């Protein structure tokens, strides 16, 4: 039985469900968990079918959050399925249009089963750090699928950086049958730790990467990776061999559901059935245990070394160049003109442009020069997005806020000229009912969801087209201060900063990987008091002591300086 609700609210959905239950008496089954599926407007049939199938084993309430942020209007439509249309569970499909996703947690809150654990599953686009996602943070288990993302291994790598106990990925569950088989082959007498292990599979397949890491981690031997034969189609691990004193134990996938096993001293191959596992089987396995999979965490950590040094994000990119103007006004004009050209270029290539603006004296002047420059360059304001590199956590109209500083010169003229309000991505203020930590998490979520599966924490990827930064006399950028402990956090997109050495003390800042996810970085500096910092920042990349040295654009990094600021170069 299916009921649809147009332009509704979460509490109306909850009420309708109670009514349906009273009418049809479909409440006799103990549901053991709430499964949230985060969809991205693409087809939800496949994950939904898997969830319905898995609900036979794990009776669940399934909530699909289907997001269409680009929709013209904002609102919520819902579809409720119970009984025959929902397997052994019940299904709620929430179609969230426009601004409703500003508060996704409030969409699902009234619909969660009391006390029961929550599992969130991203069948496609994986968030950078699942635990920092608003829905992920409510969940005991967070399930991603790196293989379904556009850059699987890159996704796995950023999941590693954002890993928290309770995360898991379907690339790992795809391995379970393989791992079980290998573990039992290990027990064939005479048992011995293999001297060499080889895994056959594509190096850009996340399951292959995890298989290698699992074996290395457990056996303590080096595992070599071999590319499969040209004509070998199919995904995942294609073969494996264990070298032992008595000979080689080898496994080779020969067909869609068979693997051939050869044992030492036995030339008759044995066939083992190992079908590719369907999505529902993977999901059912994930739901079987809701405690954290520590082994997955360790294997993931083994697969990719962590980034201890934030310098990694900036290194290996084009060297910075300098554009020196006579005075601050010249810096502003130069920067605005250059930015407008880059943004127009981005719109031509991708149909959308993302600009990160900044506060400070030069930043505000440059912002003031921007409306004219954008018009001159022919930038389409309806597809221009504005973000902030950092923001002070104060009242919404406080002069300390970067957004307030550019309100008159940038925001008001652009909005008057047609920039949609929703394209202006403001950091929450103290009046938005969030703590500093919540505000940072919220802003990070907005960034992550705008980035889809193309976003941050992967080197060599860019989300922003132009990123403007001011530089302090201590060489700080955004709110990443020299020696400040907050700047070490690289697992979240936006981070809370307390005890800022420069007032006001509470701030939200983008983190290193996100700042380093821009095509073009522009550092805007004027004044002799900053000459020292500018000179230092032209030296080696040193995020901890000289933050301004450590933000680089994928295509260019430009210092827009006045003569005074360039005085010590």
């Amino acid at each position, binding site marked *: 039985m299916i009921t649809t609700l147009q332009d509704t609210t979460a509490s109306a959905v909850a009420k309708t469900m109670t009514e349906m239950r009273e009418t049809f008496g479909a409440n*006799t*089954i*103990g549901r053991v968990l709430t499964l949230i599926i985060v969809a991205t407007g693409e087809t939800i049939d496949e994950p939904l079918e898997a969830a319905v199938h898995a*609900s*036979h*084993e*794990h*009776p669940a309430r399934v909530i699909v959050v289907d997001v269409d942020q680009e929709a013209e209007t904002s609102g919520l439509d819902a579809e409720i399925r119970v009984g025959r249309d929902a*397997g*052994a569970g019940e299904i709620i499909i929430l179609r969230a249009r426009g601004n409703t996703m500003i508060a996704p947690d409030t969409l699902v809150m009234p619909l969660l089963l009391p006390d029961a654990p929550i599992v969130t599953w991203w069948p496609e686009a994986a968030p950078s750090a699942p635990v920092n996602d608003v829905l992920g943070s409510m969940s005991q288990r967070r399930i991603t699928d790196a293989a379904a993302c556009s850059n699987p291994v890159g996704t796995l790598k950023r999941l590693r950086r954002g890993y928290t106990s309770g995360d898991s990925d379907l690339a790992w*569950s795809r391995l*379970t*049958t393989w*791992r*079980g*088989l*290998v*573990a*039992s082959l*290990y*027990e*064939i*007498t005479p*048992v011995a*730790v293999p001297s060499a292990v080889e895994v056959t599979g594509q190096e850009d397949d996340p399951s292959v990467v995890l298989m290698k890491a699992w*074996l290395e981690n*457990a*056996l*303590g031997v080096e595992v070599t990776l071999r590319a499969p034969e040209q004509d070998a189609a199919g995904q995942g691990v294609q073969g494996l061999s264990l070298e032992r004193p008595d000979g080689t134990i080898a496994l080779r996938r020969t*067909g869609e*559901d*068979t693997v051939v*096993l050869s*044992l030492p001293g*036995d030339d*008759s191959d*044995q*066939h*083992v*059935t*190992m*079908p590719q596992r369907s999505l529902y089987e993977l999901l*059912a*396995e994930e739901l*079987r*245990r809701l*405690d954290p*999979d*520590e*082994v997955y965490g360790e294997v993931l950590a083994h697969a990719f070394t962590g980034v201890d040094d934030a310098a990694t994000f900036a290194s290996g990119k084009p060297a910075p160049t300098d554009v020196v103007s006579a005075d601050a006004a010249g810096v502003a004009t130069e920067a605005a003109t250059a930015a407008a050209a880059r943004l127009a270029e981005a719109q031509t290539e991708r149909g959308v442009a993302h600009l990160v603006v900044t506060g400070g004296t030069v930043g505000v002047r440059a912002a003031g020069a921007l409306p004219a420059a954008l018009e001159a360059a022919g930038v389409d304001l309806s597809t221009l997005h504005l973000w902030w590199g950092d923001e002070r956590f104060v009242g919404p109209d406080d002069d300390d806020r970067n957004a307030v500083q550019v309100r008159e010169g940038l925001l008001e003229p652009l909005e008057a000229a047609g920039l949609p309000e929703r394209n202006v991505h403001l950091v929450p203020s103290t009046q938005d009912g969030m703590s500093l930590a919540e505000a940072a998490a919220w802003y990070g979520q907005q960034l992550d969801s705008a980035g889809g599966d193309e976003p941050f924490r992967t080197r060599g990827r860019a989300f922003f087209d132009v990123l403007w930064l001011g530089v302090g006399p201590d060489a700080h950028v955004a709110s990443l201060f020299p020696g400040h402990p907050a700047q070490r956090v690289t697992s979240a997109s936006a981070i809370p900063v307390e005890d800022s050495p420069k007032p006001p003390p509470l701030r939200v800042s983008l983190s290193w990987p996100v700042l380093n996810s821009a095509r073009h970085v522009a550092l805007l500096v004027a004044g002799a008091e900053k000459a020292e910092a500018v000179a230092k920042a032209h030296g080696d990349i040193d995020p901890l002591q000289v933050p301004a040295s450590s933000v680089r654009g994928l295509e260019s990094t430009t210092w827009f300086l006045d003569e005074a600021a360039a005085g010590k170069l």
Partner: protein
Amino acid sequence: MTDSSAPTSGRDAQDALNPLRDTRDRRLPLIAGPSSMVMFGVTGDLARKKLLPAIYDLTHRGLLPPSFGLVGYGRRDWSDDDFAEYVKKSVSEHSRTGFSESVFEQLRGGLRFVTGTFDDPAAFERLTEVVGELDRTRGTGGNHAFYLSIPPDAFPQVCEQLANSGLNTPRDGSWRRVVIEKPFGHDLESARELNAVVEKVFRPEDVFRIDHYLGKETVQNILALRFANQLFEPVWNASYVDHVQITMAEDIGIGSRAGYYDGIGTARDVIQNHLLQLLALTAMEEPVSFRAEDLRAEKEKVLAAIELPEDLAAHTARGQYVSGWQGGEEVKAYLEEDGIPADSATETFAAMRLDIATRRWAGVPFYLRAGKRLGRRVTEIAVVFKRAPFLPFRSTDTADLGQNAIVIRVQPDEGVTLRFGSKVPGTQMEVRDVSMDFAYGMNFTEESPEAYERLILDALLGDPPLFPRQKEVELSWKVLDPITAYWAEHLRPAPYRPGSWGPDTAHEMLARDGRTWRRP
């Protein structure tokens, strides 16, 4: 010798030796090590409908090693291929996970058949050769389990032949196990004799007695319910519990089992094993761990503490179904079933009161009943609580209030029901019984493995907790023997209508104690 002193078998040992088995890695399936199974009685009903499909389903789930070998032993003059055809037919009709050609192909590579009778030394020679060939070509590693799906009177012959051919003796580091099915004798003496035959040839820890009831999810859930929760254990004693009813009812007759059933009867058939095991799990103290020996120690203690009623005539009942209409079909009386003598005194219904002489259970009767052709197919354990000592309501307010109960439904529709009083909505104060129901989910069973799958896998893994040991078997017979002896002398089965809940004597038996049977 205890299980723990055999380091090359058992799950713990496996974990310790294999760095790929991390105890925290709960996803990793436990796959049986290299091994084969030799099945005697492979052409029987049980093998065809349950055992072979269970082996196939285990293969399908990837839980058997690729090298797994299955050797059929029987009188038929079959080649390996004939046997493979037979297995294929059996699994395509009865497998739980659906037939797949490629899964069958994997199994097929290890299928062998040996023709012979149970007393033919030459055939056992051939069996030895076949098993050796499996070790060489398939890598079964000398690990072999012998499944005796045959009548107990054939055990001596088979065991002797296995011993003569040396098949019972493992080489270094490998194992030989024997799996036997109930009945484990028909009284204490015969159980001891049977055991002597088997244990002469196999070490006690290598004997796996299959009681498929213990492989059921819900039975295992009794332990989880009791010992994983704080809610139930505090009231699980004589201070709060009034009595316990354990019911195992079948709505069918004896069917084709006449040959076995007559002379055995319900008490020996199911009460001695299934119902007493359920009683033990319900009544036992908390084991210090879930290791096989600790679990068994508690079960043995409670079985040893069972006391029989002094007046067996008043506190036991036995019955025999007569002919009649049941649920829309006309059914035969037990005495009219094929192969049953017209004067048979075998019972098809048995009920008894047992007491447990421990501090926890003193004064709490456990009522057991089981039978054929009863109202419906159901197995359940009902723990019925005492009434509240004081009710601050007018007596008319609570006229409809019964006793609180926790009911564990073992089959079908597995789950747990909690029964308690609740106010009826309205201006009047009126309290009535309601049921709170936990079901495993309406289709849960479809995904949950057959008991035989679990048990065969555990036997191959050498994991003993779910298998009763000889001591338990003997203790159970000690409980039952005096009752069956008394019945043979003094109590003929009372007739009961098919589709009813047994003879009047069963109802009178509870009425004497001021109680009534639950309608399950």
